[in-house]
């Protein structure tokens, strides 16, 4: 064996050893610090875990870009939706006065909120972008109550790790980790561009998660559950999106 090939062999060996032990350490740390997404299985799990872990380390407290009023899109695009259910139409006919948001799970006081109650809390507004995974985007002003305000009212247990949120459309539900749930820009949104939130944009109540893609911003929110694991929801992948082939974490 020549010197060069021996040196090469040693370096290759060292590199491989460093790589393997690095991966093992990274996997253990990721587990410990909640850097593994619910859809971490399968052939795409490694990429998803890398993305989620890297972004959680970089973006835990970062703020989504906010824009000036002059940058608000003139014609915000309401994406296509399934036709409303009869239950939704009845609530809509009554002006949504009976719309309720129930909050359950790992909380001190499970509570059912009316829209009027939610609107009585200090409202916040943000001019942020809705970005669809398809490639299009628009900017609007969103008005609502920060989700963290509601979560603080009901008292979240310390072992909580996710907030699952459900649309009145039974096939549409999602979840986010506590970093996004407690983030100051995560809103239960009821107003848009100076008006009530239009039905096309998710009125009367839409989850707004501006650091993630449009599909995480579920429309017609009626129910929240605080939990320590997403395993017991649906197929255990964290939301309806992975069940339809889309990633749970959409901060990309």
């Amino acid at each position, binding site marked *: 064996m020549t010197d060069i090939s021996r040196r*090469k062999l040693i370096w*290759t060996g060292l590199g491989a050893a460093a790589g393997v032990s690095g991966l093992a350490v990274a996997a253990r740390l990721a587990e410990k610090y909640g850097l593994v997404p619910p859809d971490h299985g399968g*052939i*795409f799990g*490694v*990429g*998803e875990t*890398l*993305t989620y872990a890297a*972004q959680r380390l*970089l*973006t835990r407290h*970062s*703020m*989504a*870009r906010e*824009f000036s009023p002059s*940058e608000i*899109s003139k*014609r*915000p*695009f309401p*994406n*296509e939706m399934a036709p409303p259910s009869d239950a939704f139409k009845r609530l809509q006919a009554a002006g949504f006065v009976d719309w309720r948001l129930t909050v359950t799970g790992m909380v001190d006081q499970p509570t059912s909120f009316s829209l009027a109650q939610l609107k009585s809390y200090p409202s916040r507004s943000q001019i942020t*972008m809705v*970005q*669809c*995974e*398809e*490639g*299009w*985007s*628009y*900017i609007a002003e969103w008005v609502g109550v920060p989700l963290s305000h509601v979560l603080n009212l009901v008292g979240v247990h310390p072992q909580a790790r996710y907030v699952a949120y459900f649309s009145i459309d039974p096939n549409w539900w999602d979840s986010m980790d506590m970093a996004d749930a407690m983030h100051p820009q995560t809103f239960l949104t009821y107003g848009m561009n100076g008006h009530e939130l239009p039905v096309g944009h998710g009125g009367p109540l839409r989850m707004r998660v*501006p*650091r*993630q*893609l449009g599909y995480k911003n579920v429309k017609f929110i009626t129910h929240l559950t605080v939990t320590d694991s997403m395993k017991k929801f649906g197929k255990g992948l964290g939301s309806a999106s992975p069940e*339809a*082939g*889309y*990633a749970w974490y959409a*901060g*990309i």
Partner: protein
Amino acid sequence: MARSESAQAPLEAYVARSVSAVRASAAASRHSALVRVTHWIVTLCFFALLLTGIEILISHPRFYWGETGTVLTKPLFQIPIPSSRDLVRTGYGYVLPDQNGWSRYLHFEAAWILVLTGLLYGIFGLATGHFRKNLFPTGADLSWRTLSATIAGHLRFQRPSEAEARSYNVLQRLAYLFVIFVLFPLIIWTGLAMSPAFVSAFPATVNLLGGQQSARLLHFVVTLALVLFLVVHIVMICLAGFWSRTRPMITGRTGTSKERV
């Protein structure tokens, strides 16, 4: 190589000498293992990224400049292909199946593998002098005479000399350097600039590009440049001799297996 060297011009003599050297050592070492492994990993990732990128693009084959753009706004241009979303008017009268779910998963996984492989290659290139020895043009390479001679040779579709089987010519060096140090960093930057979470931490990455839709357009333009490189790369390999160029990138050695025996 039976010809006498003394009768030849110096350059030809040099070529003849190196050719004899190649033949003599039969299987001269050409590409290091790390270059070969990273080359093929990047190749695989690139095709995965290209295919899934096209699938994602099909869901909205319209481009805009600035921050925003939807089917309700006027595009800068629209690619005349069918779409996988029925709200995009394409004039085709049919809608392609939605492939975005797995395409996005694979796009980002392949991107991770490509970036990590690229980092490994970059560290290796700096540590071993691979960039300096094999890719950076020498002063003589950049002389007007060499440059114009190489360009003229390419324009005449001259078959490369045997010496070029062992070392890159100046145009190759410049093209590879451009891909490695300009196009790949740009494709990664413009990709990251489309991530709402990434730009929340690093807003300058998208603001410098002119906005989210500008980043998307530039990502597409850089892709076109990379595809152009790929096409030229493959055409040049075919012109130079497909196996004589592809074999060293697999086995690491020049020369045929017969010569190696």
